[in-house]
């Protein structure tokens, strides 16, 4: 009989700090699903795990850095990208991944995001977008759809939300994709591509928030959100990002929107300084700590 003598381990467990599991995320939250995809992407991209650093800000998604058994860094609110910038510039051999939420990356950290994209710093930005500030009690976020209820917009949100892929592309990102937590295989593939790509990569993950978004907006639980994504998502790879704005009342456009090449910050820096300083210039990569 081909009965297994050894039952294999859960492939994600090798990346988790098991002493911290079970995690605090609610039943039906999509952040755990995105972590699964990230674990598969790490396995498949065959990156050297000693050269991977993961940086998170504050929030529900900000806890990912605490749960992952990689070199991880849980930073102050909104400042995940500045810390990641420091890590990358001090040690360019590191593969730095910023794993954070929409409130952290686009409200308080919005400026850091656009400037890191403008410079084309070699980072992977994974943004779990649950459409709200979840950990702090469901306040309105820059991604909350029009007329959605939140604890600070009890009569409906009246501010237009950001279109995150368009923002990322306009600011200069070289890789832009959006998936929902329903699209696990595609998400894992995108994460793998982003890990192997040089330049500023941005992946938006639309994720359910059953406790603070769905409940208040009478949208059911996490499973209902997943069925909603399954029903309403349209995969349009290469779609112009100006047409992919997230609107809860129409189709959710997902796919890989941008995949281009631009000179990275470290590349242009070395080029410029070498040109000006010649022999006097000591390349950062040669003096970096290992």
């Amino acid at each position, binding site marked *: 009989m081909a009965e297994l003598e050894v039952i294999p381990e859960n*492939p994600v467990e090798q990346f*988790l700090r098991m002493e911290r599991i079970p995690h605090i995320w609610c039943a*039906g939250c999509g952040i755990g*699903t995105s972590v699964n995809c990230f674990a598969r992407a790490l396995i498949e991209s065959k990156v050297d795990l000693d050269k991977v650093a993961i940086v998170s800000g504050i929030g529900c998604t900000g806890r990912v850095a605490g749960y992952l058994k990689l070199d991880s860094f849980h930073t102050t609110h909104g400042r995940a990208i500045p810390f990641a910038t420091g890590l990358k510039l001090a040690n360019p051999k590191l593969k730095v991944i910023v794993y954070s939420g929409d409130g952290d990356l686009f409200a308080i950290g919005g400026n850091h995001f656009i400037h890191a994209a403008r410079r084309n710093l070699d980072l992977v930005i994974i943004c779990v977008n649950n459409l709200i500030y979840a950990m702090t009690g469901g306040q309105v976020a820059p991604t909350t759809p029009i007329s959605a209820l939140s604890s600070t917009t009890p009569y409906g949100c009246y501010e237009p939300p950001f279109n995150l892929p368009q923002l990322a592309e306009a600011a200069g990102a070289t890789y832009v994709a959006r998936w929902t937590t329903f699209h696990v295989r595609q998400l894992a593939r995108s994460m793998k591509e982003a890990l192997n790509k040089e330049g500023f990569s941005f992946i938006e993950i639309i994720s359910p928030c059953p406790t603070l978004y769905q409940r208040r907006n009478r949208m059911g639980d996490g*499973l209902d959100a997943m069925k909603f994504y399954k029903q309403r998502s349209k995969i349009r790879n290469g779609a112009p990002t100006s047409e992919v704005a997230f609107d809860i009342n129409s189709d959710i456009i997902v796919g890989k929107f941008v995949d281009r090449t631009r000179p990275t910050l470290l590349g242009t820096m070395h080029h410029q300084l070498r040109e000006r300083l010649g022999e006097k210039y000591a390349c950062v990569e040669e003096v970096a700590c290992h």
Partner: protein
Amino acid sequence: MAKGSVSIIVERCKGCGFCVEFCPTKVLALSSAFNSKGYHPPYVVAPEKCSGCDLCGMYCPDFAIYGWKIPSNGKPGEDSEDEE
């Protein structure tokens, strides 16, 4: 004979039902029993249908379930992610 199997860590489950809903071959169902946190974990209703695709493992937000392929006899190369 089933091509794969699933492992369920009952105590980690929060009963969200993602695995049951999205299993392509409908191997799973939510149990009426409770785990110690009061959630209904999934159980295997149709083990022979499991293909070991691990889609349940990719969906599970609580890392409480995962699928694996049963290596067929005499073909050790088929299941490469088994070890390590």
